């Protein structure tokens, strides 16, 4: 049998992961659904006119996506923080690649799908309630279900746009790597390290803006034509690169 990847071993790992975590995952999903409904209700009670605004919906989606996503990614390798649990994880007869793949499946793909589905379940329900109970003929005062997939961010003065969800995969991959790299306080250490990099990144932009030709145009940064696609390309490649680094860190892990 292939020692790098075997679909049989991968399926066994998926089943095992699900059996050990399904209660926690299902309860977390229900708690999130409850919180989102409570939050939208709270917002409806306070907002005048009574509707759920699109930007509130966006925040209600992206906030848990990033915060819970980072925490969830960090928790995936919690076994490696102790020698006892780490031994169980590392000595299970499956390859490092298969183990990482299962973690990616649950922490990145499944988390994204389940969180998005949970959000839309709460959102569609609450938009329906808002429009039913606070009926209005004015289309501007009605509630509409937000499309989170079209929320673009960092729109440079170019044709290239960056979907905000891409940033989720970047942040998620950073926290996954942090969870393997740091043995203690991995969440806080990753957060601080990420923050330092963000400051450095902002500093580069700040310096760029001081250069001739780098002036600001409204809310958009004017950049030479080649910088925007390069920037986006780098962002798109960060997650797979960090997953590869995580693989090698995991392979070299000692407990």
């Amino acid at each position, binding site marked *: *049998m292939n*020692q790098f990847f*075997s679909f049989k*071993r991968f399926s*066994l790992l998926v*089943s*095992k992961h699900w*059996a*050990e975590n399904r209660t926690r995952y299902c309860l977390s999903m229900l708690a999130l659904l409850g919180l989102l409904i409570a939050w939208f209700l709270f917002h409806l009670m306070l907002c005048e006119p009574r509707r759920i605004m699109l930007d509130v919906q966006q925040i209600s989606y992206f906030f848990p996506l990033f915060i819970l996503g980072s925490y969830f990614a960090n928790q995936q390798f919690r*076994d490696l923080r102790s*020698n*006892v*649990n*780490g*031994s*169980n994880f*590392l*000595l*299970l*007869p*499956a*390859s*490092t690649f*298969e183990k990482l793949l299962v973690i990616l499946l649950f922490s990145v793909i499944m988390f994204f799908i389940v969180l998005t589905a949970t959000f839309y379940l709460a959102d569609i329900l609450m938009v329906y309630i808002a429009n039913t109970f606070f009926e209005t003929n004015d289309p501007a005062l009605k509630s509409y279900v937000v499309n989170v997939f079209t929320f673009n961010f960092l729109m440079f003065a170019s044709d290239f746009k960056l979907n905000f969800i891409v940033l989720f995969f970047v942040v998620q991959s950073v926290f996954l790597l942090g969870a393997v790299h740091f043995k203690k306080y991995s969440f806080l250490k990753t957060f601080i390290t990420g923050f330092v990099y963000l400051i450095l990144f902002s500093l580069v932009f700040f310096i760029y803006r001081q250069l001739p030709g780098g002036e600001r145009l409204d809310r958009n940064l004017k950049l030479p034509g080649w910088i925007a696609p390069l920037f986006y390309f780098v962002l798109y490649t960060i997650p797979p690169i960090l997953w590869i680094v995580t693989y090698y860190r995991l*392979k*070299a892990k*000692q*407990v």
Partner: protein
Amino acid sequence: MISIQNLSFAYKKKPVFNGLNLQLKAGHVYGLLGKNGTGKSSLLRNIAGLLNPQNGTISVNGFTPFERLPIFLANVFMVAEEFYLPDISIPDFIKYYSPFYPGFDTRKFTNYISVFEIPAESTLQNMSYGQKKKVLISFALAANAKVLLLDEPTNGLDIISKSQFRKILAEVVDEERCIIISTHQVKDLENLIDRVTIIDEGKILFDENIEDISKKLSFRFSYDQTDVENAYYSESSLMGNLIVGPNHDREEGKLDLELLYKAIVTNSDKITKLFQS
């Protein structure tokens, strides 16, 4: 089966092994003895692939442990002193973990846990430490791994369970399997071990089989002062002096592992010479 050559390993600044050499063969039960902190558990973790030596090589069944290939992991099972078991029932534990071990024998597992008197439908997290350990030991033995690493296996087991453990372990010893038991509870495993390996200061201080030890050393009570003075080790007791001395008759006598350990730790040079002669 297991070949360790020139092994050097350290935890950050604390050296554990420096040039350790050891050969372990199939068909034997090795008793790994040593003081606290001498590296017994670290040696087992190096063999299992949890730690990576800084220098030297380890070969287990022809594999380098730290590569942690699935085929290697399926044939090496380690029962650590402290261990983790998931929060699932025993049937689920078998359902989700046993397929990773191609040689796993469910019938044997059921037999072992019934000998240990563990209810087959229990949930692992509701069990005591001793019960969990019995489940893990049963799983380890049923996995039919070629190398079995047991770190203080009898810790946490009650008197009856220790006896059950000895009985079960004796059943699984065969010519193809290498069992290494690291323990301080030497009395618990005295009749199982067929080779004694003592580690001290990161080196192998003593490595001999039980047959040779019994032929060359005698463990007995003595009231003769000359015997006591010539002994490699002696300690007084209510019944006289308990001594470890040369076995002049070369007839195999009863081995006392605890006394042997004390004798080697306190008088290793003389005993080593005796075994080299």
